[in-house]
């Protein structure tokens, strides 16, 4: 089927979203900081935000690699 590799690409993006969600819920969610008084929540939120941004960057890098691989494959077919 025309564009079949795009279906695969969408399926992979979906799988990455589910796995990314698992990482966010199991690792990022429980992060809490103590010992800094009123700053505890702010520091924890900062760590969560930075980690989330790093995860998004990793997600984009993986997608870029997949995109190049799929697009080249599509041109050849």
């Amino acid at each position, binding site marked *: 089927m*025309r*564009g079949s590799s*795009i*279906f695969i*690409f*969408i*399926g992979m*993006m*979906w799988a990455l*979203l*589910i796995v990314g*969600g*698992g990482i*966010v*819920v*199991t690792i*990022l*969610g429980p992060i809490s900081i103590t010992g800094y008084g009123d700053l505890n*929540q*702010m520091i924890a*939120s900062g760590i*969560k*935000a930075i980690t*989330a941004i790093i995860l998004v960057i990793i997600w*984009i890098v993986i*997608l*870029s690699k997949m*995109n190049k691989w799929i*697009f080249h494959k*599509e*041109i050849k*077919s």
Partner: protein
Amino acid sequence: MTQEIISAIIVSVIAFFTVYVSTPFLIKGLEKRNFTVKDYNKKETTMVARPGGISIIAGILTSEFVLYGFFQINEILVVIITTFLAFIIGIIDDRKVMSGWFKPIALGAATIPIILFGAYDSNLAFPLFGEVTIPALYLGIIVVMIPITGNTINSIDVLNGVASGFMTIAGFALTTCLFIIQNYEIAIVSLPLGFVALAFYKYHKFPSKIFPGDSGALTFGGMYGALAIVGGVEIIAAIILLPAVINSFLFLSSMKRIVEHREIKAKPVEHTEDFNLKATTEKFAPVTLVRLILAGGPLSEKQVAHTIFKLTIFSSILGIISAFMMGVSL
């Protein structure tokens, strides 16, 4: 429950027929005032009325205000205000040439009503794994959500019928997902999106009699994003939108910056002798979803649109599976 069913039927009928009846008058009015643009994918010179966002916003506002008569909830007001702001941003862009950064920044500002009304839940829900509480980070998600949904729908509005057809499928899929997770009130609030898009598709499909313009595309995208936030289905909404997200992602990753389509010199798609579409071999042309679809060889405009709809149906099925997975916890 009876009141919910009656209100759902009434708003669906109002949303559909407001657009279905008003659009032919809008087309005549726009053509009379010479608000037309050339359809570059037609062999003969064809001028098409634009923008159709006016009838789209009329359908959404009319139906949502009627729904507010049934349920006086802040979420409806938030959807109305955010969608209307997205429409205003779009109509400004339809009338004046704005920079590439105008829409993302202005759409980010359009999220302020959501924050002011507090019409969100700062728990982000993921399929299989449950929820994560991220109060500060969630505000950031709200601010970027509407620019992302608005611009992705806008960027996919490249061929006859694609934006409205895409939004019909995505809108009804989002409503289905909201019903599955038993968020019935927001599911009813979301119904007008699918019905308005369906009615507009009647005039936008190949060969188009009207184009939605930035005002129409941003209205669709703004409402979709607002519904995702107030309905607490951000991840599911993103999954349904994946074909359009891929389009924006491919575009940005190949251009390496935010740029308006009219600023691009090297075109990603050109015409064959019989005026089918084919991918160019231009090195500096952006990679887009249409170019990717055409990489396997030339297709007619209608065939490309149908391929995009198949991709949207596929991503909608993944979204619905994800909605069922919300009830499962590992």
